């Protein structure tokens, strides 16, 4: 009788463990703060980094937050943050660790605008980790490419949904909601999968002092990124042409008629 009950508890526990343990990898990127005034380096091809403050790409913060919440909801699991970048990117990983991620991996190498090269370097590492879920920000707030997530998914041969504002993990599937023209779409995909996160339900937490202290003791591994040679070549980087300020049509509601006439007759836009 007692043996039977123990057996039942054991099975129930295994079931629970299987359902609840979740392994999540979050890919993050170090980018210039969005308030940065862009200047071009003397090489004419890159950003002049002097005096530029760097931060974790804001969309990646949503992804880290989503991962932490899913781990905590599951009750058990591990969140690993991964980045491809220079030695400075360790700082970005520490930020994620301070927020609550468990460990970090810095794949050292030069990130370019060739998103597929970056995706391959990430896939090389993530393939070995074999997580249930890979999260990324919908795009990095520097090159605005919106491509590494779905490319990574193709390389890993995982399904992928982009621009997700909230999702649930249910019985080995991810149920994702995202804003599309005219409404909200719900998509379901089997795990393991890749999801890119946009602003929505996952307002990022601030790292607590305790979190910052704990982050110093969390594992941060550095290895060389398996980056293929970039095949998307940046030839020049330039500032956009200045827009010359136009004219003040007038003051107050009386100017509305003149404005509409100008939009019709001069600008030809209405």
């Amino acid at each position, binding site marked *: 009788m007692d043996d039977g009950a123990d057996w039942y508890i054991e099975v129930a526990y295994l079931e629970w463990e299987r359902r609840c343990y979740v392994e999540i990898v979050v890919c993050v990127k170090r980018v210039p703060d*969005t*308030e*940065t*005034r*862009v200047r*071009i380096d003397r090489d004419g091809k890159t950003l002049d980094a002097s005096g530029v403050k760097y931060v974790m790409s*804001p969309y990646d913060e949503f992804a880290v937050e989503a991962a932490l919440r899913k781990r905590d909801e599951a009750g058990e699991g591990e969140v690993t943050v991964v980045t491809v970048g220079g030695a400075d990117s360790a700082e970005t990983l520490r930020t994620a660790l301070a927020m609550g991620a468990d460990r970090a991996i810095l794949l050292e190498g030069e990130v370019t*605008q060739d*998103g*597929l*090269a970056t*995706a391959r370097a990430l896939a090389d590492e993530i393939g070995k980790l074999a997580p249930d879920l890979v999260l990324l920000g919908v795009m990095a707030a*520097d*090159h*605005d490419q*919106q491509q*590494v*997530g*779905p*490319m990574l998914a*193709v390389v890993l041969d995982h*399904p*992928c*949904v*982009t*621009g997700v504002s909230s999702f649930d993990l249910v019985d080995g599937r991810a149920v994702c909601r995202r804003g*599309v*023209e*005219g*409404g*909200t*779409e719900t*998509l379901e*995909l*089997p795990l393991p*999968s890749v999801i890119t996160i*946009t*602003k929505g339900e996952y307002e990022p937490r601030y790292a607590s002092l305790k979190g910052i202290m704990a982050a110093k003791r969390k594992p941060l591994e550095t290895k060389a990124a398996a980056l293929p040679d*970039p*095949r*998307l*070549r940046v*030839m*020049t980087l*330039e500032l*956009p042409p200045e827009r010359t*300020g*136009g004219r003040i*049509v007038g*003051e*107050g*509601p009386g*100017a*509305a*008629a003149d*404005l509409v006439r100008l939009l*019709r007759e001069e*600008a030809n*836009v*209405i």
Partner: protein
Amino acid sequence: MGKILVVVEQREGRLRGTAAEVVSAASELAVARKATVEVLLPTGPGGVSDAEALGAHGAEVIEVVSDPALATYHPDGFARLVERRVRSGGYDVVLMAATAQGKDLGPRVAALLDVPLAQDVTAIESVDGEVEFLRPVYAGKAIARVAIDADPKVATLRPNVFQPASRPAAGGVVEGALDDDSDGWPTRVVGFEESGGDIPDVAEAGVVVSGGRGLKGPEHWEILEELRSALGEEAGLGASRAVVDAGWRPHSEQVGQTGKTVSPRLYFAIGISGAIQHLAGMRTAGTIVAVNKDPDAPIFKVADYGIVGDLFEVVPRLTEEIRALRERSA
């Protein structure tokens, strides 16, 4: 003698506006490369009533693939279809619009073909037989000129930037087959909840009416909605980061860095002072109109036309004038 493939979008059985834009950009490139332009148009069972119109913009062949599984965008299905078509057709350039669909589809197609992608391109140049793409980075604060050292060259083109051009070609419509089992597509669309009416996304709208802090509260958006609807069905709504952060408007409407970078034909900045990250996100608009009570607001430095005044008085009058103009010309 190369071939260029253009993947175009339909909605409710009619071409989307970006279709003519991308086909026109492709046919201009085709002149320089002595290439031909072919179109792939995935759609639902009803087909697309105006598909042959793309012939006028330079499409030699328009392949319509009708299948219930293609009625709306499906990431797995569309990516596999385009990949197969590119592999069998021997194309050296593949173009699509940088719409919500295109920006999702482009990276998948490029990765399946094992080539890089130039995403959200605002100009294509043919230099000594090489193709170069211009693409805004840092939310429009800089422009990168990039080249792809692989074939085919895959790029997505920003909506409203490339003008439809008249370049008549054969434009023969042919029917294609899906040749794929949609049961094998791992992602499933399980629901759709309508909201916000049937207005175009801010990144794709030809005309954008954007509001900022000057509106003083979310309850005042009605006056922007009135202006938007007076401007017609191609007009969408935008918002500054400040009002999105304040929770007045959804993030999907945010213009600027950490939001959307837009290039509509006409942009109204209402009660927006013009923070650097907002200006970066809309500076490539065709014509910019600003309404602000502060004559020193930075927005007036980039606006083609400005009205200094109380937006609560100016905007309703503007709406009235536009309605009157539309009625006169109707």
